[in-house]
């Protein structure tokens, strides 16, 4: 499969733009990346997938692999205590720079390789709260908890193999709860606590087949969609009602 990769310079490392697995890396200070598959098609049978990432990093470095969605603004309800007794929604808060998805895996625990800044801490530091309510609740931390419950944020160790010569491979588990859009796979090579190199490549997620058809109709012919949904429900209900009667017989 053809593979597209975008390359970034980070620190002093010289990075190689790679196209497909045919590209070979030069010296030990480059990070090279191939992703399979390089885009995700969501058909009716989609239930999450695994992205297989392979590449070459500077020798002896630890690998951090991330799958991230584009940052967006998000409005959420904040809960709090009323009259010191009842928990309920107090109002709406607006957060900015919230990645839709943020999945991180690393060959060693991030704390051990001084890579904390690459994990969920990066999300925590990046989120901007537009207006804070009259309490000191850490909204970014609460958001991370909420997204973790949904399986959209994750920080794990493992799924990465590294070899002596700097070759690595990583399996990124992509959740079933995924919306169409452009996501990014990012690889960071960590050497003694500093980033020796990094590379990122876009992964496009799109709906195909029945999901694409339904999504298009729901958004572009919404009145028709609503009426059809109603009619199908009525006829479905009638059909099952009649079917049950003929089987029941007695009535």
């Amino acid at each position, binding site marked *: 499969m053809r593979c597209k990769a975008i390359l970034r310079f980070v620190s002093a490392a010289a990075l190689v733009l790679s196209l497909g697995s045919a590209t070979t890396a030069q010296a030990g200070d480059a990070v090279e990346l191939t992703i399979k598959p390089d885009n995700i098609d969501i058909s009716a*049978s989609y239930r999450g997938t695994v992205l297989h990432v392979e590449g070459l990093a500077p020798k002896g470095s630890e690998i951090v692999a991330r799958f991230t969605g584009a940052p967006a603004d998000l409005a959420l309800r904040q809960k709090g205590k009323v009259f010191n007794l009842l928990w309920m929604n107090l109002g709406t808060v607006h957060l900015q720079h919230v990645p839709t998805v943020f999945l991180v895996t690393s060959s060693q625990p991030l704390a051990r390789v001084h890579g904390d800044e690459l994990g969920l801490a990066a999300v925590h530091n990046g989120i901007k709260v537009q207006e804070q309510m009259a309490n000191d609740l850490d909204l970014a931390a609460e958001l991370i908890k909420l997204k973790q419950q949904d399986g959209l944020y994750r920080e794990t160790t493992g799924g990465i193999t590294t070899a002596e010569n700097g070759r690595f491979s990583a399996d990124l588990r992509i959740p079933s709860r995924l919306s169409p859009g452009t996501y990014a796979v990012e690889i960071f090579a960590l050497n003694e606590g500093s980033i020796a190199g990094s590379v990122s490549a876009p992964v496009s997620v799109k709906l195909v087949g029945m999901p694409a058809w339904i999504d298009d109709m729901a958004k572009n012919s919404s*009145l028709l969609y*609503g009426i059809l*949904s*109603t009619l199908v429900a009525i006829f479905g*209900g009638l059909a099952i009602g009649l079917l049950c009667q003929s089987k029941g017989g007695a009535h």
Partner: protein
Amino acid sequence: MNIPLYMYLPIAGNSVNMAAILGLGGAVGLLSGIFGVGGGFFMTPLLIMLGIPPTVAAASDSNQIIGASTSGTLAHFRLGNVDFKMGFLLLAGGVAGGCVGVRVIKLLRALGNADFLINLTYVLMLGLVGGYMFYESLQSMRAPKTSTASTKPARGESSYQRGLRNLPWQMDFVRSGVRLSVLMPLGLGTLVGILAAIMGVGGGFIMVPVMVYLLRMPMHVVVGTSLFQILFTCVNVTIMQSIENHTVDFILALLLLIGSSIGAQLGTRIGKKLHADQLKILLATLVLVVMGKILYDLLARPDVLLAYAGGH
């Protein structure tokens, strides 16, 4: 043939276990067929637990209820349990009430603390209705048959009943076996419509007790007529949600529908075998369980202090 167990739902943006959705639909349909309630109260939170966003869960549930209530209404119609005249009058009131309710909620939001008022009204309402139904049906189940017969006419002569007889535009409701002023179903329908709009629910939980206690309709006709009304309410919600928010997941609704229509048929048959008092006490228990759940949510500290906008 190899039937896939999971399916990706484009509007919900997640893949679900089809067996779980069918089973969930079946369980809620069963309740709907027995008691004439929409069941949105159980369905929406359970769907959220299965990974469906709250707004999509609520809207798709309305779509599903259309199917279940069509199926249930048909089954009850065959048993002679649907009072169309009463149903239409309550519905007319309900639509008017719904419009008023939407305004009221806007006003409450502007005043602040709307959620507090809504939750509190709900808990009180469910507690009162559930408690009263439970107590009343327990009394009549315990009482020997003869004494029930002797207390009934006495209750019939209450000032409430006398007041009802003095209202203008009296009309016979043959199916329900009652004679009432047209104003009663219209007025009560409006009231329930307002409450339902404010609380963001279908209103079955409030409508059923209103028909039993205030309109004095027989329990079995109440169930059938309530289903008939829910059908119309949910058609409205489904179309509005499709247009304004694109939150109706048709595939999710279809899966739920298959489960719930079968459940509703089964429920109707179970309901038919139950005595009216048993039916009332079971519904009362259900109402109290729902109240308990809401109360628990209000009192226990949530795991996460943020929530996506749009749920109940």
